[in-house]
């Protein structure tokens, strides 16, 4: 082993290299590594957050769906109720109309019957008078007994 000034030269070189490495090599690389580490951590956190948000959105969509279904069912029920009501009303109206027409017909019939009865009565009265005239040909004056005849007519 032969020591000479190489020892000093090597020491100086070593110190210079370490200085250079410390100044220009280590910091940028560590910086990049740290930044990447942080980016990856952020990315993972974002992915987690995204997953969570997706879950929330899915839950919300489900809720909305359920609400919509409930609403639709309600609308349907209401529509059915309304339809039933309309049918009921129509039935009612028809019934009323029928009743009315029935009543009118009955009234008509009544009227006709009355009229028939009236004419019948007139005819009976006329027949009765005619009969009576025939029986009482001489004694009965139509003029003198007119009020008697109309009284009789009214009683028939």
């Amino acid at each position, binding site marked *: 082993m032969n*020591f000479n000034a*190489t*020892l000093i030269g090597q020491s100086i070189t070593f110190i210079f290299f*370490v200085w250079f490495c410390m100044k220009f*090599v280590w910091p940028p*690389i560590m910086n990049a590594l740290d930044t990447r580490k942080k980016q990856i951590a952020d990315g993972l956190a974002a992915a987690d957050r995204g997953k969570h948000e997706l879950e929330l959105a899915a839950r919300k969509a489900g809720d909305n769906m359920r609400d919509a279904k409930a609403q639709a069912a309600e609308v349907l029920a209401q529509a059915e109720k309304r339809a039933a009501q309309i049918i009921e009303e129509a039935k009612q109206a028809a019934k009323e109309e029928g009743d009315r027409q029935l009543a009118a017909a009955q009234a008509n019939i009544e009227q006709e019957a009355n009229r028939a009865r009236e004419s019948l009565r007139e005819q009976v009265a006329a027949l009765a008078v005619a009969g009576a005239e025939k029986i009482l040909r001489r004694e009965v004056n139509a003029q003198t007994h007119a009020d008697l005849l109309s009284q009789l007519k009214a009683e028939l």
Partner: protein
Amino acid sequence: MATEYASSGEYIKHHLQNLTYGQHADGTWGFAHGAAEAKAMGFWAINVDSMAFAIGLGILFLFLFRMAAKKATAGVPSGLQNFVEWIVEFVDGSVRGSFSHQNALVAPLALTVFMWVFLMNLMDLFPVDWLPFVASASGLPHLKIVPSTDPNVTFGMSLSVFVLVLFYSVKMKGAGGFFSELAFQPFPKFLFPVNLLLEGVGLIAKPISLALRLFGNMYAGEMIFILIALMFGGNWLLAVFGGTLQWAWAVFHILIITLQAFIFMTLTIVYLDMAHAEHH
């Protein structure tokens, strides 16, 4: 290629000699031819090959990582950035695991140590004769391409780490605190000379063991490559056997060079952690 040398001993010696530049005994400056001349140059000589490869590899490391750092984005990483981030995260994980204090210096220091030592060790996988052959063809007397087989290089790093350990020990605990850590434990206070001796040896052992472990492993590994390369000078059967051995040893060495770089880095982190830690 061992046939170019007078003996296998000379071949080994030649491969273990750094390209040293310094002042010759006669006062002129130039490259040393042989170990004796290099030794005669004394302390004020420099191993040009070690320095050149160490600096070159260090610049390669910093260049690659700086390129990745400049383009580093938080987006999807690709190619180089991916590779660099992989290493940076590995080093960062090691620092987080072993270093429990706040210090912006430690992680870049650990990264530099790991990558630089790894690249310097990686030169060991070059077949031992390739680059020295090119060098001798271009007139250089020696060339040792693995800087971490030069104790100057490993000690240069470990002593720098040691200076940091001393600096942070004093900074975090104060001079008194650091001294009491050395002097007043593990035995009671009145035995402080014994404590000081024990702890002092422990302290000094840190940089020495750090440097020698790396140097020893790489030197031994290089030596085995050289010994295997000697076989290529024999007959073809020996050469084939040597080739197989060299391949096997290189594969095994991939593990060793990575492991040594990792150990150097981990111990650097641990020593600095100890320097920051308060003893109670």
